[in-house]
């Protein structure tokens, strides 16, 4: 049981969610995770943290402000991530057919409770 258990369990209950993780943005390491069988948490964490960090830096460089929500749609799945003021990023890996709207709401709720 960690401070992130309930956040991750709530995210993982969403239909089509394969993995939910709390990741350190700077280190790209898993802080806590709920993974479906076959998901490589370390790999997802490293890549999602790197992607989120680059998006944040790009948004700042383009003077667009802070990144609110990051979404990557790929052929066999999608990655959604939100980050706040701390080093922590909440990441969800979902099926292509998953409802991104609901996932997005849950991610923002999770971020609120994290901060």
């Amino acid at each position, binding site marked *: 049981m960690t401070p992130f258990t309930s956040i991750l369990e709530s995210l993982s209950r969403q239909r089509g969610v394969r993995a939910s993780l709390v990741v350190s943005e700077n*280190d790209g390491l898993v802080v806590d995770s709920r993974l479906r069988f076959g998901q490589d948490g370390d790999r997802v964490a*490293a890549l999602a943290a*790197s992607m989120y960090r680059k998006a944040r830096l790009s948004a700042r460089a383009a003077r667009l402000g802070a990144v609110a929500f990051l979404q990557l749609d790929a052929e066999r799945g999608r990655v959604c991530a939100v980050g706040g003021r701390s080093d922590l990023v909440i990441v969800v890996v979902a099926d292509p057919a998953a409802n991104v709207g609901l996932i997005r709401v849950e991610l923002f709720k999770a971020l609120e409770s994290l901060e």
Partner: protein
Amino acid sequence: MNIATVEPWVEAPLRRFVDDARARLALLLHPSGQVIAQAGFTREVDVMSACALAAASHATAGELGRRVDGHAFRSLHYAGPERQLFLSPVETARGAYICLTVFNAESSLGLVRMYFEELCTELAAAAPPLPSIRQPTIAADFELDLNRNLAALFGRPVTS
């Protein structure tokens, strides 16, 4: 980034690792401190001292792990304010090597560890089998090998 190797089978996997992990410097060395490949170094003296220090750190951490936990610590990570280093062994058919990776904020420990696993797999697959007859390593051979490897890496003629 400039990459130089003593063993040609090391080059492609190391180049991929350095590119993917966005490493600033990388060294592949024998646990005795003999350099096998380097990426990003510009001076021989830096390679020599980095190899000696990496081999010593690896040996020290291994022994410390054995004393504390009964098993050698495998990987070491040090995070400085600007740069970080990751030191970990690589097992191949030609024996064990040590890889020292230096990275900065362009990369992360998670990415380096992830691509390091791929490097280990690729090196294990690429390593040719060990010759059946091996010469014992003695002090004179060590220095000769060290000079030969450094000469090969920095493109200077070998002096005996």
